[in-house]
């Protein structure tokens, strides 16, 4: 790349935490360049140093623990790292702005939206008071906030997550920057909102011509919105190319593995590719390739010689990679393709498996109390009449956006939250009405795996005791010795060494912890496991391991899963049946293929279209207006009608009745059937 269309050029950036030989080199020699007006993505899994690189550009590395040890950041003819803190303040927010992952914590809760944006306008553009307000309203309109003249005086807590992210973007735009750094801007948002925000960023880019540095772990987002991509691993960039080039022919083994690890429909019934092991700790010096321990294509030399950055030209585009296989003058041995990973178990079990659990008209209403005497003034209709059936050995995916009540439904089925009404029938008994001690015995049959592997284990207990806890409560295994053997066996089943039993949870990585949680659930020999977003806190490669394990266990023990998730690609890979939930009710339910191929409910269609995908470029996003309404006052008639592109007059009057279609699915929409 050459010429003056380069806006930002980073050379040999290094960030280090701590001192001496134990120092963690979080960013270890990063080079990249961003052209004016383009979107550049830094892609990588957690801990690879991508966020730290971005913070370093603005000299925002947390001090005194961390510091920038070397590098140059040329921005528009200036070396940013040479600037003083005083001068830097002129750059931040004005020439370069940043938006963060968590809109909740990056807005000041005691200032109104208008004040916060006005502050930026005053500082960087020196606008007078009146003009500030007008400009703020303009900005809010630009980022698509309805009724901006009213919203301007709202406090952050009065806004929803998506709205807050829009306000953050408006704030970032206020200084009219040349470069916007977006650090995982949509990770905390739902897919439909994510689609809105990404579209907004693209539109702003078209209008203003600013460049965007997107930091993300999501291959789907990269596939949709980006011009150039740099893949980071263990503090270094391992591959960089244009998006088209990278997706067409990824070179680095790590990148290729990443692509292969993403679950999708075509990989059903096969095992997902996984990357063994963990990211190496960055507090040591590397002699060879940093990926060598996990690379399937490594050979002796990889451990001895650090690969240099190698660039290739294809169709006039540069494609850089850091791997010895592509380094000129090195003779690499041929790759022995590993057998086994292709062959999974056979495809799905017969559909007529016996019913394991039936949920009928399940309701969970939380009373809202107010005032001195705590009178009930209303209800949150979190779950409002849910019917489900889960069969032996099959997976039912419960899909929906956050706030739709899917987690509450999952917990209510296990009676971790008391259901308000409805039946949960397991083995002829209604769990919702069972007396406490009988329920306690039945609990062994129904287990749960949580989303956050860090919060789901008592940090003060050893792994062995954690796994054993359920067995003790349920009286499985008579002696301590018997239980210990069973724990060892369980740990082995989930791929952990038996010594793990004597260690504490914090010594394990996220993926390993999730496996311990699975072992803990398996300990009591359950028939059904409620998996509450078990992979959403994990990186792609680790997610693949976890999904493989879950699938494997299902094949071996015939477990039934209720898989609660918002991740459609996981659903496509794993589930047999799908239930789509919207505002406390299930709007469409049926076999996975039918629903993914031909969604009938408008909401399902919108949801599926909003999911970024790796390959189709020309897919059309059905844009949903607004956000999920509050479950305190659900809209009358069909809950979806305020946002539904196909809404009819009747929709606002009457909730649609369920219609069963010939292919066995149930849809609740006036469009269908009548």
């Amino acid at each position, binding site marked *: 790349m050459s010429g003056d269309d380069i806006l930002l050029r980073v050379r040999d950036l290094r960030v280090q935490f701590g001192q001496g030989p134990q120092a963690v080199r979080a960013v270890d020699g990063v080079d990249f360049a961003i052209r004016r007006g383009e979107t550049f993505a830094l892609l990588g899994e957690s801990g690879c140093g991508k966020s730290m690189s971005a913070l370093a550009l603005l000299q925002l590395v947390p001090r005194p623990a961390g510091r920038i040890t070397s590098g140059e950041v040329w921005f528009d003819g200036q070396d940013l790292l040479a600037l003083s803190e005083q001068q830097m303040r002129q750059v931040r927010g004005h020439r370069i702005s940043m938006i963060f992952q968590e809109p909740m914590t990056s807005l000041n809760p005691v200032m109104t939206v208008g004040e916060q944006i006005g502050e930026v306008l005053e500082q960087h553009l020196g606008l007078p008071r009146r003009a500030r307000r007008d400009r703020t309203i303009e900005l809010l309109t630009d980022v698509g906030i309805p009724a901006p003249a009213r919203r301007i005086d709202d406090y952050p807590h009065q806004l929803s997550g998506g709205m807050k992210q829009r306000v953050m973007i408006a704030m970032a735009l206020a200084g009219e920057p040349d470069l916007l750094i977006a650090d995982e801007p949509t990770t905390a948002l739902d897919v439909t909102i994510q689609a809105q925000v990404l579209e907004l960023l693209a539109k702003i880019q078209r209008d203003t011509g600013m460049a965007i540095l997107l930091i993300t772990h999501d291959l789907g987002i990269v596939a949709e919105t980006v011009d150039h991509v740099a893949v980071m691993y263990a503090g270094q960039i391992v591959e960089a190319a244009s998006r088209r080039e990278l997706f067409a022919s990824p070179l680095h083994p790590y990148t290729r593995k990443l692509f292969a690890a993403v679950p999708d429909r075509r990989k059903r019934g096969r095992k997902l590719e996984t990357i063994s092991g963990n990211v190496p700790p960055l507090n040591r010096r590397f002699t060879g390739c940093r990926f060598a321990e996990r690379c399937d294509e490594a050979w002796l030399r990889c451990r001895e010689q650090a690969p240099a950055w190698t660039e290739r030209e294809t169709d006039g585009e540069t494609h850089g990679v850091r791997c010895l296989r592509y380094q000129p003058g090195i003779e690499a041995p041929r790759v022995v393709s590993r057998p086994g990973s292709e062959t999974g178990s056979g495809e799905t079990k017969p559909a007529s498996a016996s019913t394991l659990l039936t949920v009928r008209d399940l309701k969970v209403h939380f009373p809202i109390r107010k005032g001195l005497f705590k009178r009930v003034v209303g209800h949150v209709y979190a779950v409002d009449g849910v019917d489900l059936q889960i069969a032996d050995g099959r997976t039912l995916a419960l899909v929906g956006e956050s706030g739709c009540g899917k987690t509450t439904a999952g917990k209510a089925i296990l009676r971790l939250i008391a259901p308000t009404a409805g039946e949960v029938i397991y083995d002829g008994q209604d769990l919702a009405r069972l007396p406490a001690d009988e329920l306690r015995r039945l609990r062994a049959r129904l287990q749960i795996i949580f989303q*956050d592997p860090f919060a789901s284990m008592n940090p003060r207990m050893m792994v062995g005791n954690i796994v054993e806890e359920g067995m003790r409560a349920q009286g499985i295994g008579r002696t301590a010795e018997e239980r210990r053997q069973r724990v060892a066996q369980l740990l082995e089943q989930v791929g952990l060494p038996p010594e793990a039993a004597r260690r504490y949870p914090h010594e394990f990585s996220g993926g390993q912890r999730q496996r311990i949680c699975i072992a803990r659930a398996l300990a009591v020999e359950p028939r059904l496991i409620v998996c509450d977003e078990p992979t959403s806190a994990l990186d792609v490669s680790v997610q693949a391991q976890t999904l493989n394990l879950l699938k494997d266990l299902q094949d071996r023990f015939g477990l039934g899963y209720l898989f609660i998730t918002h991740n459609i690609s996981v659903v496509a890979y794993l589930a047999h049946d799908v239930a789509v939930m919207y505002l406390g009710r299930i709007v469409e339910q049926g076999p996975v293929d039918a629903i993914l191929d031909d969604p009938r409910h408008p909401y399902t269609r919108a949801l599926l279209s909003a999911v970024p995908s790796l390959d189709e470029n020309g897919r059309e996003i059905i844009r949903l207006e607004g956000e999920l309404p509050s479950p305190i006052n659900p809209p009358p008639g069909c809950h979806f009608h305020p946002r539904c592109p196909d809404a009819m007059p009747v929709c606002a009057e009457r909730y649609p009745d369920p219609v069963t279609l010939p292919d066995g699915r149930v849809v609740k929409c006036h469009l269908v059937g009548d």
Partner: protein
Amino acid sequence: MAKRSRPFWLWPAVTVLILALAWWQLPAQFGVRPVYLWTDRLIFLLLAGALFLGGWIRRREHLRQPWVEVFRQRRAMVALVVLLAFVITGLLDSVHYRKPLPMVDGQQGVQYSVEVVTLLDELLGTLREGTEKTYSAPFAMTQLARETVTLPDGTQSRIRPRLRHGGAHLTDPSQRGRDILASGLAGAAIGVGLTMLVWLLLGAILSRRWQTSWRAALTRIVHGRTEVPWRAILVTAGSLLVLMAMTALWSRHWHVFGTDKVGEDVLYLAIKSIRTGLVIGTLTTLVMLPFAILLGIMAGYFRGWVDDIIQYLYTTLSSIPGVLLIAAAVLSIQVYIANHPDLFETATDRADLRLLALCVILGITSWTNLCRLLRGETFKLREMDYIQAATAFGVGHFTILGRHVLPNVLHIVLIIVVLDFSGLVLAEAVLSYVGVGVDPSTISWGNMINGARLELAREPVVWWSLAAAFVFMFALVLSANLFADAVRDAFDPRLREQSP
């Protein structure tokens, strides 16, 4: 790794048994009659509890690690050495007994003196016995006030009479300065010698642990190349030893801190006050802990009406001014004690009961703070997935409280206990000053300060009581605070997260 390791309570149990046996049997061997005061028993209980807790903590990595960090901080260790000196003094002062009276002819069995003494009194022999008639200044040879005496020639004169004890061994008053200097230097020399001894001993112990030679260990300590700051510890201990040796030598012939109104040595009073301060600071915690922990985590865990009741209880309690509550309770106990003189064998018994009562009352007024903190923390913990997971396994409520909640709030308990300690010591002084503290016959800093009210108004001013109380209290509170700071830093996760 050992296959089946010893239970953590083994060594604590052995130690406690030996201690209990000694406390119970040894007095008879020396022909004295032991007196087990209520506070003594509780202190023993506390000691045993601390030993067991220590054993347990050693086995829990998450609790041990912060302590290891504490032990690596120089400031904390210096404070700890000073604290230990206080604690040892307090413990020695908690072994009470009565000595046998000399046999009278025809007497059946041994009679015991009504005066209750402690091991510490035995060590402080001259200090306790060398009383004067009234006030005298530090290192004085004569009384503070003039007295009219009849001289041998029959004339009367107002002079300052020589003291019975202070400087009595000198005939020539001009020798005073030299004597003080000489015994001070001798004391310092002894102190330095003792320090060297400690150093050699420490080197011998550490050389075994480090697997080096004795000499290497000694140099390592001197150069400060150790994880635990042994050099700082040694320097502190050495300074304390020098100070103690000097004071010990001086007080053979002098009153280092002067004497009070009835001629008692002020240094003796200040040292005896240590036990009172420690008892208040620790037993109060012992009283309040069970309430605070149980109620706090129950309120947070069960919520609903349990929470309502507990919240009501502590908001009510903490909205009554503490001093008012304490004053009311202390006064009614005073009346009770006065009306039932037959319940107490000795005056010490009576004073002791009042001390204990004060601890209980202070405990009742001070548990709300910890309770509130624990309730809030449990509230958060309750929503954690691991507690839900335990519920999903059908684990019972109280098992969950014991296994999942309590261990995760223990660090808060530790921080609060250590932080509260110095506050309580100060509270005793204030309350005694106001007149609702310990019994007037109990030796305490509060009572000393209370007495100083009048002394400061005298001419010439008697400042040494106040000064002595101040110096001792300051040393204790300062070292307790420094130590508490280190403990909090090590245990507070919020401070830790900032370092990656």
